[in-house]
């Protein structure tokens, strides 16, 4: 187990965190493992040792054919797991509160606002303060908290950037909250962690954390080119499509996110074709 953990720590995963939330999540993860290993390892050793020593062919081992009860041992048997659980309960309670996804990272620092909409099968990221949007590509300033408000235009998905920390569900007609922060400049892999249909495997994106200046430049450049996202454009975007190349919108209709959450648009339409028709073998767009 320890070996596995160290292997997994080398690159790119949740044990190689690149921001405060990811680091805190990983720390709790490792602490919990340590607490448990403290009793799991002795238990495993005892299992193997007892089995070996009391093998039938070992004539030196004492045979106690009727020994089946000991009050003192029973007390220990119940109290060891109980104590460990008590200890863990503390970790769980504190962890659940400190790292609640909807808890702001540092109230005194103003976060960047990003609105996330999961679609079949791509991610739409809206920057309400900048009035721009992007698909399957998320650019944020490093060292600045980001506040995500998330919803889904279709089925449930799960927004997850492993190296930055906690994941959170996106659901139709509902908004979830998540605060993350990239500790420094870099490209981080992001994905959906909830099966959402045939195009699910392509619902990954790159989160690019850039310097504050570079972010301002990116916003400015984005405003110069690309389509604008209006209501009709949004409905077109919400049709099924796979392997969508990242692109940006120079402008977004104000309050589009609110309209999506308020169910002003029909939910994603789902599959329309397939062998024998959608009601026998549905297949989405390729």
């Amino acid at each position, binding site marked *: 187990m320890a070996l596995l953990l160290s292997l997994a720590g080398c690159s790119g995963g949740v044990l190689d965190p690149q921001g405060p939330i990811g680091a805190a999540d990983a720390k709790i993860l490792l602490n919990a493992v340590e607490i*448990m290993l403290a009793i799991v390892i002795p238990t495993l050793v005892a*299992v193997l040792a007892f089995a070996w020593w009391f093998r039938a062919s070992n004539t030196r081992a004492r045979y106690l054919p009727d020994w089946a009860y000991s009050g003192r041992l029973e007390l220990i048997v119940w109290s060891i797991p109980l104590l460990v659980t008590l200890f863990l309960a503390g970790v769980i309670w504190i962890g659940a509160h400190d790292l609640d996804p909807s808890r702001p990272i540092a109230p005194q620092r103003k976060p960047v606002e990003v609105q996330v909409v999961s679609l079949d099968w791509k991610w739409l990221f809206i920057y309400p303060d900048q009035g721009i949007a992007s698909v399957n590509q998320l650019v944020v300033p490093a060292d600045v908290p980001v506040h995500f408000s998330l919803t889904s235009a279709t089925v449930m998905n799960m927004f997850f950037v*492993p190296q930055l920390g906690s994941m959170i569900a996106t659901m139709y007609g509902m908004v979830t909250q998540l605060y993350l922060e990239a500790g420094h400049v870099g490209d981080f892999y992001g994905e959906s962690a909830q099966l959402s249909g045939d195009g699910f495997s392509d619902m990954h994106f790159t989160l690019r954390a850039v310097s504050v200046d570079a972010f301002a430049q990116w916003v400015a450049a984005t405003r110069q080119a690309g389509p604008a996202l209006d209501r009709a454009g949004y409905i077109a975007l919400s049709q099924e499509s796979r392997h969508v190349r990242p692109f940006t919108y120079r402008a977004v209709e104000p309050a589009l996110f609110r309209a999506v959450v308020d169910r002003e648009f029909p939910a994603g339409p789902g599959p329309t074709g397939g062998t024998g028709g959608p009601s026998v073998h549905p297949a989405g767009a390729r």
Partner: protein
Amino acid sequence: MHLLGKLSWNAIPWDQPIPLVAGAVVFVALFAVVAWTILKGHLPYLWREWITSVDHKRIGVMYTLLALVMLVRGFVDAIMMRSQQAIAFRAPGYLPPEHYNQIFSAHGTIMIFFAAMPLMIGLMNFVVPLQLGVRDVAFPTLNATSFWLTATGALLVNISLVVGEFDPAGWLPYPPLSELRYSPGVGVDYYLWALLISGVGTLMTGINFVTTILKIRAPGMSYLRMTIFCWTALAANLMIVAAFPVLTATLAMLTLDRYLGFHFFTNAAGGNMMMFINLIWAWGHPEVYILALPSFGVFSEVISTFSGKPLFGYRSMVAATMFICLVSFTVWLHHFFTMGAGADVNGIFGIATSIIAVGTGVKIYNWLFTMYGGRIRFATPMLWAMGFLVTFTIGGMTGVLLAVPPADFQLHNSLFLVAHFHNVLISGVLFAGFAGITYWFPKAFGFRLHEGWGKAAFWFSLIGFYVTFMPLYVAGLLGMTRRLQHYEVAAWHPWMLVAAFGIVIMTCALACQVTQIVVSIRRRDELRDETGDPWDGRSLEWATASPPPAFNFAVLPDVRGEEPYQAIKRRAIETQQLSSEAQYEPIELPRNSPTGFIAAFFSTITGFALIWHIWWMVGLGLAAAYAVFVWFAWRDVEEYEIPADAVARADRDRRRARAEWLDHHERAGEPA
């Protein structure tokens, strides 16, 4: 309206060679078996002795057989998934997503509902009445019906391989993905009707066994003299009775959404998909303990027998079992920590979850101290138990880790989660199943399974398990989410290759299992057990002949303590004689009945018709199934009598074998 509803030639995936060939192989094999039985004239025997049997032992064997066949089917799915992920790095692999999604859904559904559940229910069926020292379960015909309804579910799932498609939305098909809008095909309907029908069977099993254990026990068999296996069976069946109606109701609501335009879980019209997830896990978490508890029972029997000692801390064990039975209903929210509940809710359910580990921990220590001071014989069942102790402890630990919300925020739905539940299910259910089968096989058939092949199967399974699933823990920590049909991240690829190699080792294990059965049947005369007690057992099932007569015990045993059979043996050895022959009396047994089989036959037709919207056939099937019950309810003769001298003859044979054993024992002069 089409006469055959949605059904047409297009339902058969002509353009997809994989399911087509697989289906063809299955059907040719099935056809060959049926043809062989008919041509060889075995059909009357099968009908008389098995299909219409209401004997709990026969039903137990049939459940186990169903489980093993479905295990192989589920395993083939696993091979496909592992090979797909091994090659689908920056490549599409050989299974398109439409197909891949069906495979993992079918794998989960089949493994949980039609392999793991029948495996445990099969063992309970065979063992519980014998251990309680009685002749059958409370409702024998209901028992047969339960089995055949389970088989109906399994059949429907397998029909979907070639006619239409299977559920592509996961083994717990979360809406809205599983709603008509996003899954308009028949796949989800196959899933729903298979589980709605087999769920009725499972619920009836629960009622049957709760009644049996509470009401029908040998004279003197008080609750605190029952074996731990009976206790865990009681707990598991209480949980079935409490939890399965929740599953059925939840699936029924999804069915109403899909069939009649309701809006329980839809995106539109105020549906709330979170309620499905909430309800399905209110069943789902108890379900994992419905599987795990009987498995703990099997290991309790095995570890005690092969250590040559009573179980350490029997009362603690009972307490821990009932503790788990209750607490496992209070933790279900840990399956959706990431759905955005607040910190208080997540914290409370996280703590509740870690508390379950107390009960499990107590059990592990009790098994440990059962081995202490023992004389451990490492026969195959004991090897499985050792493999379980080590492997399950690790799986329990990763489970508790997932119960820590911040850790789950990073690991939920990742391959780490997949590794966790295979870690607990493979050690906790499969290993238990194999231990139980090896342990009780001589009781059921009168000869042992071949030890060498059994041990080979164990070592391949154990090593295969670690090689397949430890890499998944790593991949999960590297951020790899589950159910990916292809991926682009280079760091994940090597782990998928190792896991694929692991499944090769697992395949060797499967080959050893099959060989073990074939070799054992061939050499059954060498492996014969004449005494009825091949392992030096301690509970009542070993007190009767192998295989037991239809009536189990010629005279119901008189129980005077825990481990009644151990006590009988000691008395016999001390006094150097068997207890005196009892007064034999005629025994009444329930008559065979085809009710279950016929009702299930019509249920299959009804289910199939519902899936394809063939409404006239639905009506016909339902009416016929109902008619079978009415016909059964009207029966005049429900029992037949075995005359006293037949009972006496059977029992004297057994006594002769036991007397020989005692003789032999005296000469060997060894303690019991």
